[in-house]
């Protein structure tokens, strides 16, 4: 048997070796993990929000992002009532038989958008809502003789929401939803859109 000192020296030598090996392993793991972690951080902080932003308008209506979707039904429509004055739109193009005009003034665009949204979500006083109103309440021109207006709201990113107003029928062409307006609703909308009745 060797002396205890020899064993002690051997124990220290082995320990140093093991510690060295452990450090090397830790270093190797760190070298592998660090780039992966950095990539993950970069992806989540930089690339992912951009990707979400790009995807969002194509998947949903721009209005839906800020919570005032045109022509929505149920409780989301109630939420919309409180925030009709703000929209993502920066431009409106209105095409009428007399010609077309473009409005870029933000406040006017917002007012027009609010008018359209309130016309589509506010039930007419007759209680007809989206159903066909009866008799005298219906605006003239439902028989196909009324002029047709196309109102196009455009966002900063270029996304468009298009409405057509023909007589008392307001249609959102993106979703295909149709609303029949009462006389007063139609008048209010025409006023807001600065169109001659």
């Amino acid at each position, binding site marked *: 048997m060797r002396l205890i*000192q020899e064993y002690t020296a*051997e*124990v220290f030598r082995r320990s140093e070796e093991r510690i060295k090996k452990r450090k090397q392993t830790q270093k190797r793991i760190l070298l592998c993990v660090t780039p992966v972690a950095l990539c993950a951080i970069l992806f989540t902080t930089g690339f992912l929000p951009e990707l979400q932003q790009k995807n969002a308008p194509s998947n949903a209506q721009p209005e839906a992002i800020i919570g005032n979707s045109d022509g929505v039904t149920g409780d989301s429509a109630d939420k919309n009532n409180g925030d009709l004055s703000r929209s993502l739109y920066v431009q409106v193009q209105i095409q009428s038989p007399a010609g077309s005009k473009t409005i870029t003034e933000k406040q006017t665009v917002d007012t027009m958008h609010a008018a359209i949204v309130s016309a589509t979500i506010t039930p007419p006083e007759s209680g007809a809502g989206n159903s066909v109103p009866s008799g005298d309440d219906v605006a003239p021109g439902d028989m196909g003789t009324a002029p047709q207006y196309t109102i196009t709201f455009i966002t900063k990113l270029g996304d468009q929401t298009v409405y057509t107003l023909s007589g008392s029928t307001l249609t959102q062409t993106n979703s295909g939803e149709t609303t029949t307006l009462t006389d007063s609703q139609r008048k209010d909308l025409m006023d807001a859109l600065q169109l001659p009745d």
Partner: protein
Amino acid sequence: MDNGASSYRRFLNGDESAFHEIMEALFRGLVFFINGYVHDMHAAEDLAMDAFSDLIVHPHRYNFKVSLKTYVYMLGRSRALDYLRHRKVLQFVDLSDADRLADEKELSEFVLADARKRTLSAAIGQLPEDMRVVIHLIYFEEMTYDEAARVMKKSRKQIDNLLYRGKKELRAILGKDGEQLL
């Protein structure tokens, strides 16, 4: 006596000579103990050194709640059992038998300093492993039942039973002369 815990504390505080004290106090006993499992002196030395190097590589694993001796013997036992498991897979090349036997004799002379222990040790060799280890820890390493239970990862009751049965068998092996040794 704290069985090396204070020396280990000193070692952790930077005093390397304290580790030598621990080695002096525990190394040979541990080799003898491990040899009881592996029946190979050189492997036992190797495993004992590995167990001691655990004290240096993982200093914070020992919580000072048990004696250092108990802890080191726990490490030694676990290393011995690992070795036995691996030995089934790996083939080891034996060193010279003469060397090994000489080392074994020298070690047993050191650990089993008195005649009583030597006589007992010879008889213990005939016992099953668990009984042999328990008797070794209690009578040769002078551990308490609790410490032996910790080393062997058994309950105190199991240690008690093993010791009772071991002593009974030893009496049968040693005969009437052996009665006074126990």
